């Protein structure tokens, strides 16, 4: 099971990136290229999801799944915040909670690739679920911060800019591009797909290889920062807590999602994806939003956790394990 997942080219390129940093090679993907590869992946997954949506029927399961996804995204930060508060500052706890409530598009995309390779069917509306899970977590995170900062006597410097925040969380670049591409895929349907299939479908896995190569490099660098920051200032950064939480939280969230998803009656592929969404943590959209909404939170807390630990954990161990668990649940 693990070996199968391990022998997929995209995952192996992730490890090549990690290796490059470990041996201190100068291998590097230029910054604008990395951003473009991520734009491409969002565009392609959105379009594919939209076309799949146009070809399928929308029933109550779909609606319930989307609602459950948003509820998960709002719920996860709540309990995560209270777990984290004991070791983290309030700002850091709120930002990290938002990070784990939200999702990692690349983990989701890798999971779809995994399912395709395994021949397991999944439904296009799961892409919509992913897009809808980005924002609630951000809002809950900020709410938690404003609520507990006051009660803990922090000096309130400036009120939260709620309209700006809503825009940031619901209309940030990634969310808009996925939702927009989905809408376009849905409008143009299989006809539109015929025109753009060579880009949207054929290139997908090859581009994912190059993108994960870069992700491996970036993740390994953050892991290095994490180790270094610990040895420098032993007191503030609770390294062991960070490491154990970044491995425990995805598992905990996955169990919750498997339960909820089973209850919703999701099929094998959709259940795996729903679980992956809950278990994954954002490292693009949420960190960017947190820099604006909670600048006093420390990105060197939540970025290494989600990017350097939770992300490879889900990629390597999580996805196949969640798949086995889902099969077991559905068989049971």
């Amino acid at each position, binding site marked *: 099971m693990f070996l199968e997942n391990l022998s997929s080219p995209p995952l192996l390129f992730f490890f090549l990136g990690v290796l490059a940093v470990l041996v201190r090679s100068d291998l590097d993907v230029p910054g604008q290229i990395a951003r473009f590869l991520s734009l491409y992946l969002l565009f392609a997954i959105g379009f594919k999801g939209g076309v799949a949506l146009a070809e399928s029927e929308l029933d109550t399961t779909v609606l319930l799944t989307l609602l459950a996804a948003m509820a998960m995204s709002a719920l996860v930060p709540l309990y995560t915040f209270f777990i984290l508060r004991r070791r983290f500052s309030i700002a850091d706890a709120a930002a990290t909670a938002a990070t784990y409530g939200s999702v990692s598009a690349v983990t989701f995309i890798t999971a779809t690739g995994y399912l395709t390779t395994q021949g397991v069917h999944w439904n296009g509306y799961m892409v919509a679920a992913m897009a809808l899970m980005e924002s609630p977590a951000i809002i809950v995170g900020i709410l938690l911060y404003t609520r507990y900062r006051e009660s803990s006597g922090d000096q309130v410097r400036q009120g939260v800019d709620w309209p700006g925040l809503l825009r940031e969380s619901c209309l940030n670049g990634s969310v808009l591009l996925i939702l927009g591409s989905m809408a376009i895929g849905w409008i143009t349907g299989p006809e539109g797909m015929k025109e753009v299939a060579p880009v949207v479908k054929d290139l997908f896995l090859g581009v994912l290889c190059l993108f994960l190569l870069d992700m491996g490099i970036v993740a390994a660098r953050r892991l290095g920062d994490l180790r270094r920051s610990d040895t420098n200032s032993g007191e503030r950064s609770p390294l062991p807590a960070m490491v154990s939480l970044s491995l425990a939280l995805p598992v905990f969230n996955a169990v919750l999602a498997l339960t909820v998803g089973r209850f919703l009656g999701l099929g094998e592929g959709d259940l795996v994806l729903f679980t992956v969404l809950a278990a994954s943590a954002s490292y693009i959209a949420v960190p960017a939003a947190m820099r604006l909404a909670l600048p006093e939170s420390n*990105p060197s807390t939540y*970025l290494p956790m989600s990017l350097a630990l939770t992300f490879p954990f889900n990629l390597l161990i999580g996805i196949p394990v969640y798949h086995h668990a889902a099969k077991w649940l559905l068989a049971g």
Partner: protein
Amino acid sequence: MKPCKRIEIVIEEPMAPRLVSMLKGLKVSGYTAIPNASGDGDRGTRRGDELAGDSSNTLFIIACEDDRLVKKIVEKVRPLIQRSGGICLVSDAHWLTH
């Protein structure tokens, strides 16, 4: 050539639009912004390799001949870099009038 102050601000990329609207609010006559700067400071390393710009800095250069305006800019920059990091340097220069 007229004497002026040269203000130089390093701020993280997601905050750059805020700095710009602050400058516009003060009716500053102009600025230049250089993206994709990396750096190191109290808040750790910013490598300029991040996928959403949240690990890059932007360098702003503002020439300003009005000393009172310089003071106002600096006062408004202070809370921005206090919360999210960065530096602000002010030096003397001569500005080519045309």
